[in-house]
């Protein structure tokens, strides 16, 4: 499935306090990381509803990165603990859909760890590149559900 | 060659259709009874925790969910080598008995019965529950609705709801009966016994008293000679919940008797490319095609088959009626397909009597309705008698009790070949060379089909209406030349 020239689309959900700041630092201090990642800033990793992850894959992501503060450092006390409990279930669920566990990753990245962020993104992108495109709507043979034009009002 | 399509005939765990081909002289060349429906439960139950199969598999059929629920629970108990508390067994049987009363009631009064009570030649508009009401009195319509409602109440009491109850689990049942609930059940059971007696009287007064009807039941168009299968207890009496599977040959002699778990030594299912439904037959005899007789592996299940396969009924009133039926119809076994209606009423009475017995059982209010299975799960078969026939669930799991393989032989499917033959026979007798295929033929074919109560025997016909039937006749260029239709 490995395709030459394939550039994976990665969605990164980063908590604003630690990981996003870390990513920002990586950007400004020119620690290069691949441009494959599209960053979505959230208040806290605990606020990343699994629905976001499913939607990301549905919308064509090849990989999803979740990053939050190190355990103990969450600005909402235990938001990242929630993430930690949810994450393994998320992986199991995705495997049930036939989505390889290598396509999702959880990392703790502090505001000072610009370099770590850059390494993680590089490594993750390379791994996703290796397994190849997911292309959900095609692979699963499903398109998005019927739109409902003109269904504004119902009258008998 | 002309082609005739009846589409859809009625529900059979899906939709059914009959395609008939006439040769150039207008005689029936062949009839295909087609089920264009498959949902694939045997595949997608793989990977599921085995204790959930009794929740998933009833969704095969919302007409007999209780039967699937219990067959599944028994199979899962067997997977865990788990002996369930005796009160749990009784509660399951009690729920099943109440369900049987409701289901058989519906079939007789709303679906199959009208042909007899009102008459097969009555105007179509009267051949339904309203016609029955007119003939036997107004209060009976209310009685039927009430009988169903009170039996539903019993199922809901134990399973939370009537369609797709959540009552049994591996190791027993979730809920027991309080003394108050038991009393309620007993009242319902007493009423059910009276209703069972009354229903047989209706049959006696209206059907048996009329020679024309009896002649119809015993006529050749509705007779096929097959093997019969059903669950029996240790005294060879009919049992719906447990026992051994007994098969008798077309002469009524015991052909085999086996434990549920050995079913694979006895039953085989054939596949035909023109239908989604398989054709089970007796393994040791083999598949001879859609033909009857001693040399054909075709067998039948459901009320008449159960009575044929047993030596009697386990409750006194039903036993009397059992004897009367065989005396009247000339001894065992009875091969008249339409006698299923009578057999169904004998069973209704048995179910009600058994229901009553159970409500009076001192153990029935024991609150310890469940045990936790402890043995290592592996493989198990569960069999019950669903109203429409012997129902097999067979599961294999890994050591965590996660399902690896599932095999199901659903009640009506056992009758698949026989239904096909009955239809063909009725049609062949009626579609004669040169004659137009008329509306009258439709009801005759329909009756052959309906006697088996192929799964949509429920409340469905208590509105004015008929099983939809349409025959399309095509000429050899597949051009539609005629449509015969009831409306």
């Amino acid at each position, binding site marked *: 499935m490995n395709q030459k020239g394939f550039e994976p689309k990665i969605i990164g959900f980063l908590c604003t306090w630690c990981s996003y700041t870390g990513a920002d630092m990586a950007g400004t201090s020119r620690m290069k990381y691949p441009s494959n990642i599209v960053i979505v800033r959230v208040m806290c990793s605990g606020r990343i509803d699994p629905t976001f992850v499913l939607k990301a894959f549905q919308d064509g992501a090849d990989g999803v990165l979740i990053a939050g503060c190190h355990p103990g450092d969450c600005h909402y006390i235990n938001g990242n603990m*929630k993430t930690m409990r949810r994450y393994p279930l998320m992986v199991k669920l995705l495997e049930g859909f036939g989505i390889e566990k290598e396509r999702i990753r959880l990392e703790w990245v502090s505001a000072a760890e610009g370099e770590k962020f850059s390494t993680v993104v590089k490594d993750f992108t390379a791994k996703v590149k290796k397994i190849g495109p997911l292309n959900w709507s095609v692979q699963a043979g499903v398109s998005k559900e019927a739109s*409902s034009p003109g269904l*504004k009002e*119902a009258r008998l | 060659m002309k082609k005739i399509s009846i589409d859809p005939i009625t529900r059979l765990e899906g*939709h059914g259709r009959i395609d008939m081909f006439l040769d150039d002289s207008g005689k029936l060349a062949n009839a295909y009874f087609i089920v264009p429906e498959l949902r694939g439960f045997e*595949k997608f139950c793989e990977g599921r925790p085995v204790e959930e199969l009794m929740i998933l598999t009833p969704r095969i059929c919302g007409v007999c969910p209780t039967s699937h629920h219990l067959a599944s629970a028994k199979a899962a108990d067997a997977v865990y080598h788990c002996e369930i508390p005796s009160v749990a067994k009784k509660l399951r049987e009690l729920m099943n008995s109440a369900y049987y009363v409701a289901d058989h009631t519906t079939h007789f009064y709303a679906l199959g019965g009208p042909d007899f009570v009102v008459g097969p030649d009555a105007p179509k508009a009267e051949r339904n529950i309203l016609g029955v009401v007119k003939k036997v009195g107004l209060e009976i319509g209310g009685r039927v609705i009430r009988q169903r409602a009170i039996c539903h109440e019993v199922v809901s009491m134990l399973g939370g709801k009537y369609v797709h109850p959540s009552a049994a689990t591996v190791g027993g049942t979730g809920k027991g009966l309080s003394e108050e609930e038991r009393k309620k059940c007993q009242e319902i059971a007493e009423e059910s016994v009276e209703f069972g007696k009354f229903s047989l009287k209706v049959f006696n007064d209206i059907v048996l008293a009329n020679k024309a009807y009896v002649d119809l039941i015993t006529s050749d168009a509705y007779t096929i000679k097959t093997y019969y299968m059903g669950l029996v207890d240790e005294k060879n009496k009919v049992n719906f919940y447990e026992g051994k599977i007994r098969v008798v040959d077309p002469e009524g002699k015991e052909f085999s008797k086996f434990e549920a778990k050995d079913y694979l030594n006895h039953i085989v299912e054939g596949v035909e490319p023109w239908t989604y439904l398989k054709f089970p037959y007796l393994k040791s005899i083999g598949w001879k095609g859609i033909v009857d007789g001693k040399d054909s592996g075709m067998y039948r299940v459901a009320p008449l088959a159960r009575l044929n396969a047993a030596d009697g009924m386990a409750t006194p009133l039903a036993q009397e009626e059992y004897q009367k039926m065989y005396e009247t119809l000339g001894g065992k076994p009875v091969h008249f397909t339409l006698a299923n209606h009578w057999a169904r009423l004998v069973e209704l009475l048995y179910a009600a009597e058994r229901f009553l017995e159970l409500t009076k059982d001192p153990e029935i209010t024991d609150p310890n309705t469940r045990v936790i299975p402890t043995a290592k799960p592996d493989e198990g078969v569960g069999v019950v008698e669903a109203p429409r026939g012997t129902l097999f669930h067979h599961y294999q799991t890994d050591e965590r009790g996660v399902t690896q393989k599932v095999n199901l032989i659903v009640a009506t499917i056992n009758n698949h070949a026989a239904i096909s033959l009955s239809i063909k026979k009725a049609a062949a007798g009626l579609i004669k060379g040169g004659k137009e295929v008329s509306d009258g033929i439709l009801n005759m074919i329909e009756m052959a089909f309906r006697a088996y109560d192929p799964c949509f025997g429920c409340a469905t016909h208590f509105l004015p209406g008929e099983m939809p039937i349409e025959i399309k006749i095509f000429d050899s260029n597949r051009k539609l030349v005629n449509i015969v239709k009831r409306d």
Partner: protein
Amino acid sequence: MTKPKLALNWTASCGGCEIAVLEIKEKILDVANIFDIVFWPCVMDFKYSDLEKFKSKEIDLCLFNGAIRTSEHEHLAKLLREKSKVLVAYGACACEGGIPGLANQFDKESIFQRVYVEIPSNQNKDKKFPQENNDMPEGKVQIPAFYDTVKSLKQIVPVEYFIPGCPPLEKTTWKALETVVKGELPPVGSYLGAGDKTVCEECPRKKEEKKIKRFYRSHLKLPEPEKCLLEQGIICAGPATRSGCEGACLKANLPCWGCYGPAQGVVDVGAKFMSALASVIDSDDEKEINKILEGIVDPIGTFYRFGLAGSILRRRKISQEKKG
């Protein structure tokens, strides 16, 4: 004034939804008084060809039950959409794909292989499979195409309303019909007849704090009476499931299986259920968390029991090699 026209139809369905409509008992006669029932193949003598004769939007209300599994189902869905002013998905199968939607973890080929070849009671040496077109000696016999993927009704055609449940309970059906009869139709896309909370909120069991060290499968623990099952570690779909049944299964001492579908506002029932379960885990230790999660042996079946087809990802990936 002429009576509004009502149609009922089924597709990949177990028939339980048809029974459920009749569960309203004598009120069915009210329905017959209010509506002119023009199509109901399971109960009355109407044919598909009768349906084709209707003018566009001539049917006022259509209750549609069952999922879309074959080409015939798709055809019927489109036809009824065209003929109906208001199309209602009735029951879990039509709303979310229901239990048959669990087949979306597999495809046509693996299902056929199992059902027609592997099954131990089969006798099928020549590996015969049902075919759409069959040339029999006497003529052509056709059956509809079986799709790889089960779909919910709204994935095929636009749908105005949804009535949840497997099947909808009597009170749900009746409430929904009343809403329609009284002309109190809510905004398009609404659920009718059920609640807008979760099953937990109407469950009779006592709720305290949910903190658990182990998940139990329902048959492996005797629940304490009256106490919330999830607090005892028994997996229960109540927190993710729409209210309306008043906790029917809980009253029978077994957990909610999720038949009323995603609770109000929930986009993906699995995501919601998963979050709810994760949130009761009493541990901050990765290893321990993983150990606790071993209690969930079938994530897809547990989280999407009645709604895989209607979920965001809808099915398991179909392997391209096999398809190619």
